[in-house]
């Protein structure tokens, strides 16, 4: 299915149907990942239960060095 991740259109397999599966699919190893799903900020415990559907808009956010 097609989804939009951080502004980029991306095709992901049909079985990548939750946020947790999407993070695993993208091989993201950051210690902290924050997800905004269709303009809704998700709590970490909701990653496993939040379903990904075609045309979803997903923002993957990280912490980076700063002052």
């Amino acid at each position, binding site marked *: 299915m097609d989804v939009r991740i951080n502004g980029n259109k991306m095709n992901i397999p049909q079985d990548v149907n939750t946020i947790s599966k999407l993070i695993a699919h*993208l091989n993201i190893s950051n*210690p902290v990942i924050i997800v905004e799903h269709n303009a809704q900020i998700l709590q*970490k415990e909701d990653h496993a239960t939040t379903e990904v559907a075609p045309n979803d808009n997903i923002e993957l956010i990280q*912490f980076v*060095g*700063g*002052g």
Partner: protein
Amino acid sequence: MLQIGPYHFQSKLFLGTGKFSNFDIQKEAVDASETEVLTFAVQRMNIYEPNQPNFLEKIDLQKFKFLPNTAGAKTAEEAVRIAKLAQASGICHMVKVEIIGCDKTLLPDPVETLRATEMLLEEGFIVLPYTSDDVVLAKRLENLGAHAIMPGASPIGSGQGIVNPLNLQFIIEQSEVPVIVDAGIGSPTDVAYAMELGADGVLLNTAVSGATDPVKMAVAMKLAVQAGQLGFEAGRIPKKTHAVASSPQEGLGL
């Protein structure tokens, strides 16, 4: 002891995590500084390079209190969104409101900073606004309920030190909440000066990460905080326009 909201700190030095040459040096500098508070920024992930090392990999998440900033925000609404994103990580304790109003000087937008502080306080955040050294604005932020005030010493990353000590002194004297001098610090002299003025703490980043030896500079900054604090508590002598001898002037009368 420094208290901000519900948190108590032995160290009065807050350290930023930007622009270290590598994460090993950063970790060493963080440890050497003995800071208890680390700041960082919130950013979109590069999904095409998801395995790039992240600075948090070297950081013991249980050991520090985390102060994400809202850098990149131009409006109060954007700052609130960034703060909420950071909060959703589950590891953050406070938020530094940072809304830049001028790309050339990186000075904060006072109106948006005030609005964001009010909005975030209503949402229950522990809010530390980064502000200019405007005395009245600092009081307005405090009156809203800000948990600490963080006036800049000089423009971010400039290393110019404290360019308006009088304003900082006024802010410190009037404030009922902690004052953390933030931005523009260049050397241990600046840190000691801020503490001698009566500041409750100092937040710095580039002064350590950009030093030739960041680890040694982290130690120097730690000691400067302590020296300045002790000097403030000890009470310095007043400045005089004329010499006052510290030795007897009579000598042996030969």
